[in-house]
């Protein structure tokens, strides 16, 4: 295992007290909807911490047993389609998911994620080469991801959105003003 040198996670919420390291991948297919990320019946739980243990429950019951802060979600097209529930990126953030790398994202999920400070990266190249359990390292500034020593290109996050992400979300960025 190569020594991971990660300098990219300036996102405060995601990194406070968290060890820098390679993250392992959970890989899912296309059209993963927000009901699968967090089902309707859990949306009324008073806190995100109570909701987060049900993340991906209908899709992958192993996920919650194995996920650790710093892990990644890699998905095919249209990740986060369906409802407008902001709890979907919120549970991923609460679990410490470092970034979601997908071929494409549904628009409401994309906006919500940026606003909450969850990096959502359009990344077409890596999907066919990565499997659940593989370890990767994302360089958001340079727009690439490393897997087994191979570099896969990702789309760079637009500067305005990067700024929001760096500050930990819309709320944190408004507080700065």
């Amino acid at each position, binding site marked *: 295992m190569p020594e991971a040198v990660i300098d990219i996670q300036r996102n405060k919420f995601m990194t406070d007290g968290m060890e820098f390291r390679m993250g392992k991948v959970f890989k899912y297919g296309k059209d993963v909807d927000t009901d699968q990320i967090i089902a309707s019946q859990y949306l009324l739980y*008073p806190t995100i911490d109570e909701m987060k243990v049900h993340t991906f429950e209908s899709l992958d019951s192993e996920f919650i047993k194995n996920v650790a802060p710093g892990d990644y979600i890699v998905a095919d097209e249209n990740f986060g389609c369906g409802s407008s529930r902001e709890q979907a990126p919120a549970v991923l953030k609460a679990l410490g998911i470092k970034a979601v790398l997908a071929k494409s994202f549904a628009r409401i999920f994309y*906006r919500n994620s940026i*606003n909450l400070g969850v990096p959502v990266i359009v990344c077409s190249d890596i999907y066919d080469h990565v499997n659940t359990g593989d370890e990767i390292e994302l360089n958001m500034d340079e727009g690439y991801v490393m897997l087994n020593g191979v570099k896969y290109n990702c789309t760079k996050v637009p500067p305005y959105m990067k700024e929001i992400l760096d500050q930990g979300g819309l709320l944190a960025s408004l507080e700065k003003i």
Partner: protein
Amino acid sequence: MMGATLIEKIIRRNVHDDNVKAGDIVFVKPDRVMIHDIFIPFVADKFHEMGFKKVWDPDKVVIIYDHMVPSSQVDDTRHFRSGDAFAKEQGIEHIHRADGVCHQLMPELRYATPGDVVFGTDSHTVTYGGVGAFSTGIGYTEMAGILGTGELWIKVPETIRVNVNGKLPQGVTSKDVILTIIGDLTAAGATYKSMEFSGDTFDAMSVSERLTMANMTIEAGAKCGLFYADEKTAEFSGVPCDEAHGCFKDEGDGDYVQVLNYKAEDFVPVAACPSQVDKIRPISELKDIKIDQVFIGSCTNGRLEDLRAAAEILKGKHVAPYVKLIITPASRSIYIKAVQEGLMKIFNDAGAIIMNPGCGLCCGRSGGILTDGETVVATNNRNFLGRMGTNKVNIYLASPVTAAHSAVKGYVTNG
């Protein structure tokens, strides 16, 4: 000179700039916003957390309780208390506590009218495209931002033009049309884009039929699904039919990224099969699928015309012995009209379970939750895994016509 798409016309009117085109980022000033019961506590908390004191314009804010009415779990009422407290604090008078589904009430009560820009904390906010409004769903953090500032940045979307001409065959509804289009586009096919509907098939449709279609455009990922407002829309919305009131002419000269052309005569009754909304099959190919339940309702197909269509089929008949038929009118006014027209008696005599107006089973919180291996034919908009119970429930999305026939026969059928 290149003309404009409908979304460009609507946004130009909002920002008072005739040069706005697809790809531009603009700040729009919403004519109305809608928050429903599930997210009102989160919006209120974020609003206060952001340091805002007063909502920019209380008259432009509508709060609707629908997903959780009546409450089904112990803590549900917390959301109503939160909404009531926020409305009182902010002087918000447009609050509906048990009047029906938000996406029916917004156009029905004329909160959303032609040419408006509307945001809601629900993905099916796209429904008001049926009356020619630009409306789309956002998260609760962005909603809190709008409440404090009165504006939101958006990227003007590119447009997919959908042309349908001709007369739909008997028994084929606008639900079958939109399901077919979603099947062709796929669940991601219109992501970030506006869908714009044009042709004499849509001219012949009622406002209700158009609302059904606009409602489902999000299932192809669309930012909005727009119909040109016409005389019917203007009457429905209580406005004069002119450009100043958002009734734009369909000149067909916009810059479209994709154009789909259909002949109305080619459509057939279809269903979205478990568990993808773009997994579309003709009903005629679905053989021997025994069902346990039928749901007729929701912001997609819980309108008076839908209930009439179902009643016509159910009149003098009874549901199959093992089928539970759940009828949920989309609003209070639809409910009473259905009573006055005798539809409710037909449903009652047929053995249906008639529920209060609201979201009901569609959001999987109450009123007919299913379990492993069970099958439901439903008129709503989503058949996602786990939507109406466990992740082994089979949900077939179809029209009220197919739903009613299936309830009588006990298997998936359209006659």
